[in-house]
Structure formats: C-alpha cells, structure tokens
C-alpha cells in the first residue's frame, strides 16, 4: 500500500518547509515539495503551508503569498475537500486567501515570541487532529511575531458555536489572540490553521515534546481510512 503523499509549499521566505517535510516523513507519509510559482499540486493527498516570513511579511503576514500561482490551484482544491494545514505563516496565508475567517495581527506584546506553549486540543475531528482526544493538553512551541488572532464578533461566535476552534492557549496567551485561539478550521474540517508549530515537537531530541506528531499522523490515519473506503 502506498504512503499518503503530503505536499509542502515553499514560498519565497518560507522557513519551516524542510521541518514540515521531516515531520511528514516521521509520521510515515511521503513529503512532496511544491513550488509557489508552479500551477501544479502534483497530485498530492494533502498540503501543508509551512511557517516563515514569506516575502519578509513586510506588508502584512501572508498578504503577498496569497497571490502565488499555486494558490490558484490550492484554493479550489481546499474548497473541494483537500486536507490543508497552515502553520504560522501558513495560517496567515489561509486567512488572507479567505479559506479561513479572521486575520492575524502583530502580537499584543509587540515582540516576536518563542516559547514552549501548553495548548488544549478543542476539536479532535478535523483531518489534522483525529489522533488527539478532545480536551487533550499538549506542549508545542509557538514562535511568531504576528500571531494575534482576531475576527469580528459574529465570526467568533460562529467559530465557537460550531466547535471550529481547534486549539487554545493554556496558562498564558502569548500574542493576545481573541478567546485564546491558537488554531481554527473551516466548516468541513479539512482546512486547519494553527499558530504553534507541531513540526517542532516531533522528536524528543530537538523539541520540548513529541506532542506535535499527532497532527501529521492524524492525516495519515485519515488518508488510510479513505483509501480503505475506496
């Protein structure tokens, strides 16, 4: 049986693309690198938009990458159900391209923040969180300058009512996100945006925990069960 093929997009200024690919491999899937300027998703089963500072994030985080040629392919594919995970800068790109509601603004503390963050997984039903149990607490690094999630009241209420807050900050809100939101998903649960970096919590040697691995194995599990249905 073939392993799931997970695409990792490299935008100019992506930084965690190779780390995301490593996490995909550690989860037992095949990492396929995707180039922002191509119009080709290379037939992958899922896509990760990695962290970084694409285009320097000079204008607004994710604002320019949203216009990448590859995004013209990704947006309809995501709307049609392709599993997509945006981590940090990837989350920002997903919001800028309206695959996810709201926006990410500069941290309330006005500094870049890098810390080992305790989180609670509040939705274990998405393509990327199926390996977790609802309410599970995990430790995963956050590292961002523009991580403050905002949305208007109606959107926030919608996210809460529909259980679309995927992860929440515990102990300390590192960036001033509304409702301590660390990650959200779309209505269908296939598109997830996450500010913390699960790809930096996949090996005990290099991360504070291995709690992040679940994001990548969830997908493999989901992918395998899909294959089983076929």
């Amino acid at each position, binding site marked *: 049986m073939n392993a799931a093929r997970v695409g990792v997009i490299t935008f*100019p*200024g992506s*930084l*965690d693309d*190779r*780390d995301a690919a*490593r996490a995909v491999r550690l989860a037992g899937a095949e990492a396929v690198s995707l180039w922002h*300027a191509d119009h080709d998703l290379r037939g992958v089963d899922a896509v990760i938009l990695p*962290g*970084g*500072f694409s*285009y*320097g*994030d*000079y204008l607004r985080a994710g604002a320019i990458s949203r216009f990448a040629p590859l995004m013209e392919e990704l947006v309809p594919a995501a709307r049609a159900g392709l599993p997509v995970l945006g981590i940090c800068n990837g989350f920002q790109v997903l919001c800028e391209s309206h695959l996810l509601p709201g926006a990410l603004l500069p941290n309330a503390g006005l*500094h*870049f*923040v*890098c*810390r080992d963050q305790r989180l609670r997984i509040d939705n274990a039903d998405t393509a990327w969180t199926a390996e977790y149990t609802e309410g599970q607490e995990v430790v995963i*690094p956050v*590292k961002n*300058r523009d991580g403050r999630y905002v949305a208007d009241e109606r959107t926030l209420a919608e996210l809460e009512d529909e259980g679309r807050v995927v992860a929440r900050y515990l102990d300390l809100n590192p960036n001033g996100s509304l409702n301590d939101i660390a990650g959200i998903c779309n209505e269908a649960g296939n598109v997830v945006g996450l500010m913390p*970096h699960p*790809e*930096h919590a*996949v*090996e005990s*040697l*290099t*991360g504070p925990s291995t709690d992040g691995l679940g994001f990548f194995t969830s997908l493999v599990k989901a992918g395998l069960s899909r294959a089983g249905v076929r």
Partner: protein
Amino acid sequence: VGEPPVDSVAVAERTPEQRQPYVELGMNEGEYRRVRDILGRRPTAAELAIYSVMWSEHCSYKSSKVHLRQFADKAPQNDALLVGMGENAGVVDVGRGLAVTFKVESHNHPSYVEPYQGAATGVGGIVRDILSMGARPVAVMDSLRFGPADAPDTQRVLPGVVAGVGGYGNSLGLPNIGGETVFDACYLQNPLVNALCIGVMRHDDIKRAIAPGPGNQVILFGATTGPDGIGGASVLASATFDEESQAKRPSVQVGDPFMEKLLIECCMELYREDLVVGIQDLGAAGVSCATTELAAAGTGGMHVVLDRVPLRDPTLRPEEILMSESQERMMAVVEPAKVERFLEICARWEIPATVIGEVTDTGRLVMTWRDEVIVDIPPGTAADEGPVYERPYAPPADLAALQADTPGRLARPANADDLRNTVLWLAGSPNLSAKTWVTSQYDRYVLGNTVLAMPEDAGVLRLDDESGLGVALSLDGNGRYARLDPYAGAQLALSEAYRNVAATGARPLAVTNCLNFGSPEDPGVMWQFARATEGLADACQALGVPVTGGNVSFYNQTETQPINPTPVIGVLGVHDDVRRRVNMAFPAEGHMLVLLGQ
C-alpha cells in the same frame, strides 16, 4: 546640470598636482605617498576610494596584524583544519565528509547609531561570510554588551539591538542557539554587538574568494547598490558635487532579510550545480573589496565595467559605487558556459544578477566608467599589501592601582541583614537575572536540529539525522577580567567557552574570536591588545585548538575613555552522536554530585 567630468586615469596623469582629500578619507600622508609610488602617478578619485577603504583599519588590520600572526605561528597541528585564517571564515572537518565553518564579527558602532538596523545588518553580514564559503548557514549566536540597564541610552539601544538580532535571524530561518547579555558602565556609549554564524557543507563544496581563469565572468547578484554607508565617499564627490546632494548620503545601512533568505537558497542551488569558480560577499568596502580581493587571489587581473552595477539611486558617482556598503550583495566568478544557467537560477529566486566584468591575465584591476578608464591598479597592493604598523604599547597608567584593589579590600557582610541584602542585590542585578526576555525573541527551533539552546551554557546542533553527528558552540567573554589582566582575561574567556562546550560531551576543535578594544593609537589599549592576543594564542596552543578566524573591532571608546578590553571567544566542538549530549539538568533523584578540578 550635466554629469560632472570623470576623473579618469588620463586626467590623473595630466593633473599630478591636484589636491586630493586623502586626510578626510582617513589616510595619512605616508599612506597617500605609497599609493602614488605604487601607481607612479596620483590616484584617480575612484582609486583613492579603493585604497582608502582597503587600507582602513577595518579592512587591512594594519594595527593588529603583527599580533594576530601568533594565531598562525603558534597554531597547534590539527588535521581538522581544512581552511585556515585569511579566508572569509575558517573551515573545520567534523567527519563523515562534512565540514563546518564559523566566525564571529562585530557591528558595534552602527548599533549605537541605529540599534535595530545596526544589529540586524551585523547578523546579515556574518551570515553572508559563512554563505560565501560554500556552506549552508545553520545557526547564529550573539554576544551583547550594554551600559547600565537603567540608563536612558541603554533603554534606547537595547530593545532595538535585541529586536534587530531577532528580526534578521528569525527571518532567515536560523535558530539562535546562545549568547551573552552583559551590562557595564564602560559600554554606555559603546555597546558591543558581536554576532556569530555557523554553516555546514560537504568537503568538496568549499568555496574560495578567488577569480582564476581569464575569460571567466564576474557577476554581481543580490540587492541593488544604493548610497548606504558612504559617508566617506561624499568627500570625494565634493570636488565635483554640490553640497546639497552630499547631505543626502546616509551612513545607516538598512537590512533586507527577505532578500538575504533568497540569496541563501539561491547560492545553495548555484553550489549544488557547481556553477561558481569563486565567490565573495560584499561587506564593508563593497565592490572595492570584492573586486580587489577576488582578483588578487586569482590570476591577478580583472576588467570591470562599473556602469553595469545596478543602482538603486541613479545619481551615484563611481567612487560612491565603489564604497557603498549596501547589504545583501554577492559577487561570483563564473565560467562563460555556465553564465546562462547561473542567471536562470537567480531569476527563479527573483534575485537581480548582472555580469559586470571578466577575469583577465594582465595582473591589473581595470575599471571603466562611461568608457573611460578610472581604475588601473595591481589589485594585490590594495587587498594584501596595505600598511602594517607596529604601534607602541605600554601598560595603562592605572593598572597597578587597579590590580592592587583586590576583593580582599571589600567590606564583608557584618550580620544576617547585610548578607541578606547582598544576596538580594545579586539576585536582582541585571547581569545575573534570567535572560529569557532576550532569548524569547529569538527562534531557537527553526531547521529542527537544535538539540541544546537557552538556558544551556552551550548550544548543540545536529548535523546528520542518521548518525547523530553534531556540534556544540559557546561564545564567552569577560571585559572586567581582561581589564585587570588582558593576558589571563583572554585565556579565561577561552577556557569558559571551552568548558561549556566540553561539558555537553563535545570534543573542542576550533576557536573564533572577536576582539573589542579602544583606540590602537592609545599605547595602553595597544598593550591590552598585545597581551590579550598573546594570552589567547598561548592558551590555544596549550589546549590544542587552532584559531580559525575572527574579527578585530578597535576605536570602541568615548573620547579618551576606552571600553574594558573585551575579547569574545567562540569555541566549536564536535559530537559523534548528539543523542549522547549532557545538559544542565539533574536527570533523576539519587545521582551523585562530583566536583572536578581544584
């Protein structure tokens, strides 16, 4: 207003008596005479620009050279050294076909003028140094010194410096794996910002700053050239330029980390396809430095069409182009058949690249501007044969008194309250308190290979996922010890870094250093420098670790008051398997504590 006339070689020959602003450019009478002797005529404005920057203290090491020689002379035999001092950075074999290159550099003065940009471009500069050796940069460290924490100037400088180091390094995707943050009154108007970068490559990927092979093309790539950091050049233009346009020339360089990130990825692809014969980053002295050094190290000749340099400001004069310190630029020497592919890869990364010249076998560096020859020099005379000074030195007058003022003369706590206050005072002192407010602004996770970082005393990186091969690095200095005894102070800094690296389980291999001192024209400072370099060289010999490179920063002083002499020493060690590293934590209850040493 038409273009001012070009000060060509022909004009220079016709006007031998023309007065030239060499003093304003920081050259003394003797140095200017030497240039005239070398050329057999007066230099053109462009040539004067080249010699003045290449013979500056910063580029020529004219006051420090005689002392730095000891690092080579006393260097222990060490098979691990693949490239020694003299190149952009030394290269050390770490086994399994891999090599690492690392170096520390200062950006002290610019960080006082504009803290954010000064610190940011300091990181950018050292990263390009490592990149130009053929390596992929994999981590950074920073050693910082500020005045008292509550001084207004510190409150202006410190947040900007930390944000700048973080802003640039984080945007490049380089983990920050350690450093120092120290407060002392002597740094109030002379903060120290020393940045270290380490890179990894395969042995056959090592690149040199050379331009061999007549007919090979010279390509400038990266950012366009603007009027950054050319305060000096405006004096040259003053003969031909109105005052108003001079006032426009800024001394502040602004960094573009996004461009540098693209440069890194672009260079990695260029190296992978073996498209460069020689490469050099453009740092201080920009095009002057890159062309003279590349040419001098190759077949000795190069022809450059200076008009081809892409400009951000079209009014720049040739002298200004030669002296511009615009960041994020590199120069490569490429075989003609590979130029097309080279330019293709640059275009893929959206990086401007331009062929600006060609390697020749004439032994001369020739540059034209508007079809006239404005530079015609033997490049080695600018790059390697600068002046060398044996500056006089003598112990500072107050040294004996300082040394006599021992801790024994301090009042002892007389009672429990005194003791309590002392402990509280220590706990609250900025030098001893936690530095997480600094380190939390730095990404320590990116690249996924950071095995140890803050709060550990040394950073540890994995280089190879399979075998666990890795390195440990520590960066340490102590200006107070060095002030009391520069010889022992340098050795103490080295041994602290050496111990920090060894304590993680690594085998120390090589040393880099950044020597921060006052003015070399002050005999007291020069004595501190001589003693510190001697101490460091002797200790490296005793410990069997060679100095592979470094940087000297002089003139860190406020009027006549120099900073404490501050040699900052970096030690690199190798781990055969980082999975066996040791950290600071007590792993479990019941273990025994053992004190090693005296």
